């Protein structure tokens, strides 16, 4: 038992890697799903344990040395309140969506490909969890590529239903690769000037270099600025931050239902985590925000994301695409929190990473239920479903209220912190844009809700009934969680506060 406890950080990444390989070899029939479920369940338990440890019990960091090579020479896994929270989010969504995917993938992916689907599914989680836990810049890149490559595959697997999944996957592949290259180039620049690949070590060495900038003989100024710019562009692509979001709507729309739910809840969130890590723990806010003023640029992109994403969402007639564009907007909220550079802003970012994973996960899963029963997710497929599939629609509605930020849903909590952080910085207009974004969300959620609850079923449409329980239960689970964390935000606030204060070096 103690042995497992000791190797917990490594297990989170190694376990799904091993089971993923096993699935590819042995996962015929339904076994792939069972293996994935077991692996994600174990990972969830492990991440929750780590989260409890760093937030509630202390010490605030847990370090694990791969092969016992000391840092900065070897790869170290470092768990702190920030990545513990993000990992728990990824693992939770991973587990719940796996539960759901067992049934939902059946009509979308042919049985002979199922085991590869499950193998890639687990590799995707390996990459995402690894990115979050690693303390090494190059390891980060490797895991980024693992997650991206498996994501391209997962999206392309939607081609059984709609051939456009293939072009969406290629589109993402091209942009994702560019993004990963940008990240790699940026890291190379930093390696050039610091000679290190360990995040903490780079941070320490950069401090010495920054110190020279105040003197007459500044060194490596342009190299570091260029490196930072490359990294930020690379991460923004992964994060789907406006204007680098163009790959995202089609990818989410044409991917299999479960894949959309998984990606919406995890992939972009990990990108957001990467951005927080680079800005706050590696480059330092003094350089990134105070010296370069990149917070203004980041905030501007975030506000544009909120407005453009939400306005695009309003125009959509395909509900999945509508949600995809809504995600573009929601990413803007997270990015604005990062740019705010205060406790409330980071709290908002961390809470919104979690909340948005819950709400968007629930909504994509609800749409998956609709797809399963009606064969489509255009708004006309939603018409009149409120009576035919009451629980699915209720879950969708709860998720939608979360996007709007209605009090008593979790979305309200993150908006509260976000506006608070903007006002603390005296950013009145951004605070206003955040609130206007809620109203835009009301419009696009309202379009879906109106179709569901006040529309009539189309003529000669086949009879539909409520989704199967194995899909309904996970969907309702996430929706209920969104309500729960909206009514009692004690846990999310505590965890996010620990993360924010840890990053900003404020005593907890």
């Amino acid at each position, binding site marked *: 038992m103690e042995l497992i406890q000791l190797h917990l950080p490594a297990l989170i990444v190694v376990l799904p890697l091993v089971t993923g390989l096993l699935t590819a070899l042995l996962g015929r029939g339904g076994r792939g799903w069972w293996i994935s479920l077991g692996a994600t369940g174990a990972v969830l338990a492990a991440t929750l344990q780590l989260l409890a440890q760093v937030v509630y019990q202390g010490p605030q960091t847990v370090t694990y040395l791969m092969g016992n090579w000391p840092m900065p020479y070897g790869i170290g896994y470092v768990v702190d309140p920030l990545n513990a929270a993000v990992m728990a989010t990824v693992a939770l969504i991973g587990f719940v969506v796996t539960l759901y995917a067992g049934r939902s993938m059946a009509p979308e992916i042919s049985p002979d490909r199922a085991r590869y689907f499950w193998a890639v599914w687990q590799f995707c989680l390996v990459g995402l969890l690894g990115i979050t836990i690693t303390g090494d810049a190059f390891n980060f890149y490797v895991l980024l590529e693992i997650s991206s490559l498996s994501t391209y595959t997962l999206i392309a697997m939607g081609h059984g239903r709609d051939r456009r999944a293939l072009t969406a996957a290629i589109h993402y592949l091209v942009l994702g690769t560019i993004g990963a290259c940008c990240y790699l180039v940026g890291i190379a620049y930093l390696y050039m000037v610091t000679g290190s690949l360990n995040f903490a070590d780079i941070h320490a060495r950069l401090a010495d270099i920054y110190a020279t900038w105040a003197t007459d003989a500044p060194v490596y100024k342009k190299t570091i600025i260029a490196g930072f710019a490359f990294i930020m562009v690379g991460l923004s692509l992964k994060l789907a931050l406006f204007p680098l979001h163009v790959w995202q709507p089609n990818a989410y729309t044409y991917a299999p239902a479960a894949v959309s739910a998984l990606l919406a809840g995890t992939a972009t969130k990990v990108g957001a985590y990467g951005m927080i890590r680079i800005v706050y723990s590696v480059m330092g806010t003094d350089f990134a925000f105070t010296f370069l003023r990149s917070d203004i640029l980041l905030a501007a992109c975030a506000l544009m994301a909120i407005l453009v994403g939400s306005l695009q969402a309003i125009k959509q007639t395909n509900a999945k695409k509508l949600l995809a564009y809504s995600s573009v907007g929601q990413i803007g909220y997270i990015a604005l929190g990062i740019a705010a550079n205060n406790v409330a802003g980071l709290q908002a970012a961390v809470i919104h990473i979690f909340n948005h994973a819950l709400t968007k996960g629930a909504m994509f899963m609800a749409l998956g239920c609709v797809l399963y029963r009606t064969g489509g997710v255009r708004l006309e497929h939603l018409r009149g479903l409120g009576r035919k599939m009451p629980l699915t629609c209720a879950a969708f509605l709860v998720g939608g209220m979360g996007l709007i930020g209605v009090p*008593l849903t979790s979305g309200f*909590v993150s908006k*509260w912190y976000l506006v*608070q952080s903007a006002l603390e910085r005296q950013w009145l207009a951004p*605070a206003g844009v955040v609130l*206007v974004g809620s*109203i835009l969300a009301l419009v696009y959620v309202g379009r879906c809700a*109106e179709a569901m609850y006040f529309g009539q079923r189309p003529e000669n449409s086949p009879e539909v009934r409520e989704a199967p329980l194995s899909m309904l239960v996970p969907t309702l689970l996430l929706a209920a969680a969104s309500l729960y964390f909206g009514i009692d935000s*004690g846990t999310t606030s*505590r965890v996010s506060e620990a993360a924010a204060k840890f990053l900003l070096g404020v005593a907890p």
Partner: protein
Amino acid sequence: MSPELTVLLAVGLPLVGTLLIVALGRWPNLRDGVTVVTSLAVFSLVASLLPAVLAGRVVEAQLGLNLIPGVPVAFRVEPLGMVYALVASLLWIPNSVYAFGYMRGNHEKHQTRFFACFPVAIASAVGIAFAENIFTMFLFYEVLTFSTVPLVTHKGSSDAMRSGRVYLGVLLTTSVCLQLFAVLWIYVLYRQGVLPGIGFVRGGLFGNALAAGAVSAQMLGLLFFLYIYGIGKSALMPMHKWLPAAMVAPTPVSAFLHAVAVVKAGVFCVVKVIVYVFGVETLRLSGQSAWLVYVSGGTILAASLIALFQDNLKKRLAYSTISQLSYVIMAAALLTPVAIMAATVHIIAHALGKITLFFAAGSVYTAAHKTQVSQLDGIGRRMPWTMAAFTIGALSMIGVPPVVGFISKWTLLRGVVESAQLGGTRAEELFALCVIALSTLLNAGYFAPIIYRAFFRPPSPEDEHHPHGEAPVSMVFALCTTAGLVLLFFVWPRALLTLGAAVMEAAT
């Protein structure tokens, strides 16, 4: 029973009622019985708090909710809130009786949903009334908005849907973009140590901060503006469009919610915020609220003018409501003790009169299926009780003896005089006097023709073929009761003036 428990029960009991109503949906008589019992219980709970409040005792209660850590959902009963809670819970009783007759008489569908939404609205009204801080008020304000949307869209026709969109759009946009903005701003100022808290306190929050220069007069003015227009339910022009739109709802909704609970929540919040957040003295010193006298006065006149030209009876009443609501706002904006008392008394007086008028309009619709003013020729002979009650209500709107409207108008005039004596600018007082005089004429101008048609014009020939009498007994009973109250409080003004004096006492 301890007063704390009473407060919590007054908010919580209606929600239990909702659950019971949904559970008993299959047995209409039982279901409607629950409504009556709940309404009686809620009124007695609220009324039982009255002696303590008049004696000046502080009654507080807190809900153990952790919506946002450090921001409690708490209640404190004070005279002004007491007045609003009394009015709302008292008039719910006749409205329930009336609604049974109306809904059954018109064979409305989805009656369970209809009756289930009402208690939620009441619970939120009581929550608004007793809110201890601006966050709690905002919270219940939003619940009130959402709980009344299904009532507005009740008919499900495209017209009803359009109105529902306007209703939700205006109320939510104003409350989220302006009110929530102000709430958060005040919260941030409190966190920064500029303001003493976010609760409603005697004399307001801003006195010291303004004197010390921590808050500039312009900032106070901006916050004031955000708050006044953030409370869209007060239907101050140009944010009034939702109220005529809401007239598409069944008449019990218009009568109770859009003449009493919802709109009075609006003006109540305006008065409460002026008195307990900004502070009467502070506002007068800063001079930042003078515009409100002119805007509300303009609203009174403009709405009355529009009402003159409405042929639809309910629309005419709606515009009359907009104009009468602004009386309350104008009174509060005069910022003198007696004017605050006038605002309080007018909240009560208008509620009693307007609910009677709507009851009468619905009764005409049920018995004669008439909705337009031009169809009402000679209807007074067939429906003498209804039209007599209508006349009493109309007189109260005009503000002449022997009805309660006279008491409030008289008090308002006293407030204007007092404002002049306290060294007002004179221009404001003169303007207010002109508005009162002109609007009295206009009110007479749009109510007198209805009364004239009903009693003094012969019925049109085609009416001879559709004989009808009075509306169902329960409806006539309800409207006679409220008409009786309108008369009662004229001969017993002490009741109103005592409450008003208590509010005045606490306000300054």
